[in-house]
């Protein structure tokens, strides 16, 4: 009988990550490992550096120092020429799907074109293949009937589900969500969270920045509480929500719950 080979490296590996904006140190040496299929929920007060952390992962922000690896591959390599590094980045970014608070759908493209754009242009899929995948994904997020609409005609919740489908179309190993329900009307939040829960159940590795504590309790394998650019406390949702050890965590949860 074959034994499934044990992975020797975590899916996401962050070591000593620091990020400064000028004199402001926003990330103060983060160490964080996320295992394959793990759902990690990142919480913390405004300005604690949650978005910056996500954006450093796919190099939308350039880390000041530290090491980031995705699936064993170093993201912020320093051994490449500027040109080669850009090519390297374009490739590793395809392994990380990112969903933004404000959707950032392409307004000049239909829902279908939004989803097929990168698979065709970057992965060189044929139009038919990309279209087939896109339609499957749209069905999965419950928006098959909207495939020929322009984003301006969709509700916030629908836009966000398209944005998730767009990221999934690249078949990423990791999904990063940055407060994806914060800009939505309350009654639209549920649909988006359900899609994310499905994804978690299917074994996607996810880092989710959110203020939806209910989601964190239901779906997270681990909750990380950040404050002032550092990880203040982490643990299972039960532990963090029912028995937080740190005073800052207690205060934060007292404010939001």
């Amino acid at each position, binding site marked *: 009988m074959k034994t499934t080979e044990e992975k020797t490296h975590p899916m996401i590996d962050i070591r000593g990550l620091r990020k400064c904006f000028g004199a402001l140190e926003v990330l103060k040496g983060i160490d964080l490992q996320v295992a394959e299929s793990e759902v990690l929920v990142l919480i913390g007060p405004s300005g604690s550096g949650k978005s910056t952390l996500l954006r450093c992962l796919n190099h939308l922000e350039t880390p000041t120092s530290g090491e980031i690896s995705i699936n064993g591959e170093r993201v912020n390599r320093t051994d490449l020429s500027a040109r080669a590094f850009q090519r390297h980045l374009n490739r590793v970014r395809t392994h990380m799907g990112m969903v933004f608070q404000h959707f950032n759908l*392409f307004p000049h493209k239909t829902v279908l074109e939004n989803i097929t754009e990168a698979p065709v242009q970057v992965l060189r899929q044929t139009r038919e293949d990309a279209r087939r995948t896109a339609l499957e994904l749209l069905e999965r997020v419950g928006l098959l009937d909207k495939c020929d609409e322009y984003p301006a005609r969709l509700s916030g919740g629908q836009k966000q589900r398209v944005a998730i489908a767009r990221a999934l179309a690249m078949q990423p190993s990791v999904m990063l969500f940055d407060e994806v329900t914060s800009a939505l009307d309350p009654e639209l939040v549920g649909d988006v969270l359900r899609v994310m829960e499905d994804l978690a159940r299917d074994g996607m590795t996810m880092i989710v920045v959110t203020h939806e504590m209910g989601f964190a309790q239901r779906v997270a394998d681990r909750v990380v509480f950040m404050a002032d650019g550092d990880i203040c406390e982490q643990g299972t949702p039960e532990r963090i929500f029912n028995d937080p050890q740190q005073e800052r965590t207690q205060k934060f949860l007292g404010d939001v719950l």
Partner: protein
Amino acid sequence: MLDWSVIFHYSPFFLKAAVLTLQISVISLIVGLVFGLVAALCVLAKNPLLQWPARFYVWLIRSTPLLVQLFIIYFGFPQFGLDLSPFWSGVLALALNTGAYNAETIRGGIQSVPAGQVEAARSLGMSAALTMRRIVLPQALRLIIPPLGNNFVILIKDTSLVSTITLVELTLTAQRLIGSTYKPFEMYLMAAFFYALLTTGATLLLKKLESRAAWSHA
């Protein structure tokens, strides 16, 4: 009173001159768009070797009169062995001139596309060039078609300056016919009429283009 008989009699001359004016305008428009796009991309580039020459070009053109630019090219360049025909001197001067204004327009359009659009594209693995071509420029285009159209209308009117370098376009046609008809009012009126015809035609065409570039109305 208007002398309608000279107007009718000489209108074929003006029609022919209008064709030349249109030719100069359209060629300058196309070359000027290329100049403008290249200059805008260079001004926005991080590389100073691209940025500074482009900035200098835009500054130089915008801070000097078109007539002087035209004279430098037509009368000045031959001193260095660059002897262009009146037609190509005119086109070059007009294209360089409108290009500088287009560059500013295009740069503004590109910069007004939200940063989130670029981040979304880059996070999908799209290169900077691909992002510019597929995501940013198409969105900028919608914003810049009206001001670019404006630049084009100005360009058509500016072609009257090439009358000073012996190009028999509308203005010089009027001037020459005045010599034989002694009817300056009628002749200049004819020139004005054809300019208005060209600029209005261009404006209508651009309105059409504008509505086609609008991808949604929500």
